[in-house]
């Protein structure tokens, strides 16, 4: 177990380092002079100074270290990342760390609320796919719940606004002040991922019902629903943990659009503003932040999963061992 944790930790650090390198490359890969583009984007924002003069460009190049060799820039960048010195945001004219800190609370609230809602809805969808009476009803229910994969987040967000804010007037349409304002954005994000979660759960429960212990429980006189709720569900919930990383990813992606539509000043909205203004220091920090969150979450989930269920084999070993049998099963 210790060896596994250390290996997993090493892998996480490598990926994190990769994300930092990628964010460094973002600025290196800009066609043309990054300093000129940044000044162009910055100047049109507030001061109306028009095109930046050569002196300003040169000053910025020195400030960003763009006049030094690439490797020296990279080394300096790594030091800045480690010391959390991200420089100044061009769009907001504040230190990048302050800008991100200002959006963090709103996004954390949205993230927590949507994860909670996703789990509740996913459970309902998953159980409905197994427990509803009649094959046709179950299959229709399942196809409705997976709509979330295909529905554009911006469309769903606007539909919910139209129905529940403008139509029924239950929730405020914009802002992040009250808990009521959190309901619709969280619901939008939850509806998008709960279908996948429910599908996974349904499949897990169906597999569980074919296990001998389910037969034993039925033989002891438990109803089908009783077996599912008391025995199978616990086993079937376990694989759902592996989805948490993906879930966080889809919430972060969705937050860009959802926060923009509902007017929430969160990290997702900051990403949109940063790209609109080509605010590269902010983009770099956000790339590392989202990559870091994903790495941390998957690390914790993988280790916890192995601790909860020691039967789990390491992914790469399992891959090699299982593939031939899977293929044989598919061909049969």
């Amino acid at each position, binding site marked *: 177990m210790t060896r596994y944790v250390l290996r997993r930790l090493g892998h996480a650090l490598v990926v994190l380092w990769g994300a930092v390198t990628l964010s460094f490359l973002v600025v290196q890969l800009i066609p043309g002079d990054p300093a000129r583009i940044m000044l162009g984007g910055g100047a049109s924002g507030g001061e109306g100074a028009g095109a930046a003069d050569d002196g300003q460009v040169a000053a910025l190049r020195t400030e960003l270290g763009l006049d030094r060799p690439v490797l020296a820039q990279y080394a300096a960048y790594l030091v800045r990342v480690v010391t959390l010195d991200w420089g100044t945001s061009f769009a907001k004219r504040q230190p990048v760390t302050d800008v991100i800190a200002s959006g963090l609370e709103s996004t954390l609230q949205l993230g927590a609320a949507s994860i909670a809602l996703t789990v509740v809805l996913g459970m309902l969808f998953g159980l409905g796919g197994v427990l509803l009476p009649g094959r046709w009803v179950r299959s229709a229910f399942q196809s409705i719940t997976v709509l979330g994969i295909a529905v*554009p987040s911006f469309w769903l967000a606007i539909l919910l606004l139209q129905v529940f804010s403008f139509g029924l007037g239950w929730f405020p349409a914009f802002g992040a002040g009250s808990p009521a304002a959190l309901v619709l954005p969280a619901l939008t994000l939850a509806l998008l991922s709960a279908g996948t979660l429910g599908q996974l759960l349904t499949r897990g429960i169906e597999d569980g019902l074919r296990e001998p212990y389910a037969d034993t429980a039925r033989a002891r006189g438990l109803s089908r629903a009783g077996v599912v709720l008391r025995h199978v569900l616990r086993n079937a919930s376990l694989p759902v943990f592996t989805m948490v990383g993906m879930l966080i990813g889809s919430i*972060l992606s969705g937050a860009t659009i959802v926060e923009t539509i509902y007017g929430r000043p969160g990290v997702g909205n900051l990403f949109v503003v940063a790209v*609109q203004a080509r605010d590269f220091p902010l983009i770099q920090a956000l790339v590392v932040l989202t990559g870091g969150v994903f790495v941390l979450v998957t690390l914790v989930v993988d280790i916890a999963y192995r601790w909860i269920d020691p039967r789990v084999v390491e992914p790469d070993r399992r891959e090699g061992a299982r593939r031939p049998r899977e293929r044989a099963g598919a061909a049969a």
Partner: protein
Amino acid sequence: MIARALGSAGAALRQPGAVAAALVLAVLVGWALAPTAFAPLDPVHDLDAAAPLAPPSAAHWFGTDVLGRDVFSRVVHGARVSLLAGLVAVAISLTIGTALGIVAAYAGRWTDTAISRSVDVLVAIPGLLLSMALVSILGFGVDRVAIAVGLAGIPGFVRIARAETIRILSLPYFDAARTSGTRPLRILASHVLPNATGPVVVLAGLELGGAILAVAGLSFLGFGAVPPLPEWGSMVNEGRLHIATAWWLTFFPGAVVAATVLALNRLSRNARRRA
């Protein structure tokens, strides 16, 4: 032969979902290839000045927008932009991703490690955010958004192509080909590629839906299509100002995106079951 045709018709009837999905796609391809045949009105210049913001009616099935343009015509003409952007994106992910995956599996050692770890890094940054970061490098416009979405979609293809190649390389006929002196490139072309196609094509179908969603999302955020051009995502964005009064501006373009992605997903999953 007639019996076989009847048989496949019967098989189709047992899968009404797949048939509906195929119909949806056929209509969309028709819209993309010959938009004027389905919507005679010009999506940009035909303004019905008498009826701006008119709700859906017999004359304007999807209503009209602020300038009195027919929303249905704009949606029909938007099919070409969205489908083309999706195809470009998937073509980019498919060619680069498959090539890298095969190389990783075939070369092994540090090449494999380098490619696989890079893929891990790309996967760590959520797809839409990665596309947005790339858009900030490439600049704005539908074509650049399509390229960004395509580049962000590479990791999935690397992983599946790598796994498939490793599987094929472990099969006996690969050893037979190698020991009989076939050159590596020829082995790749005549043995690995054809056998790896199935799963890759299924992924391409699923990714096409995802790419269309992503392009629409980025256009909605204002990074893609420039206003007079009819594009589904940016149409929803334009309609946002009127969500309280004119629901049809956002409803129809968004519903068409959802139907497109749903149809593509359905058919890809069908193909996977058959493969």
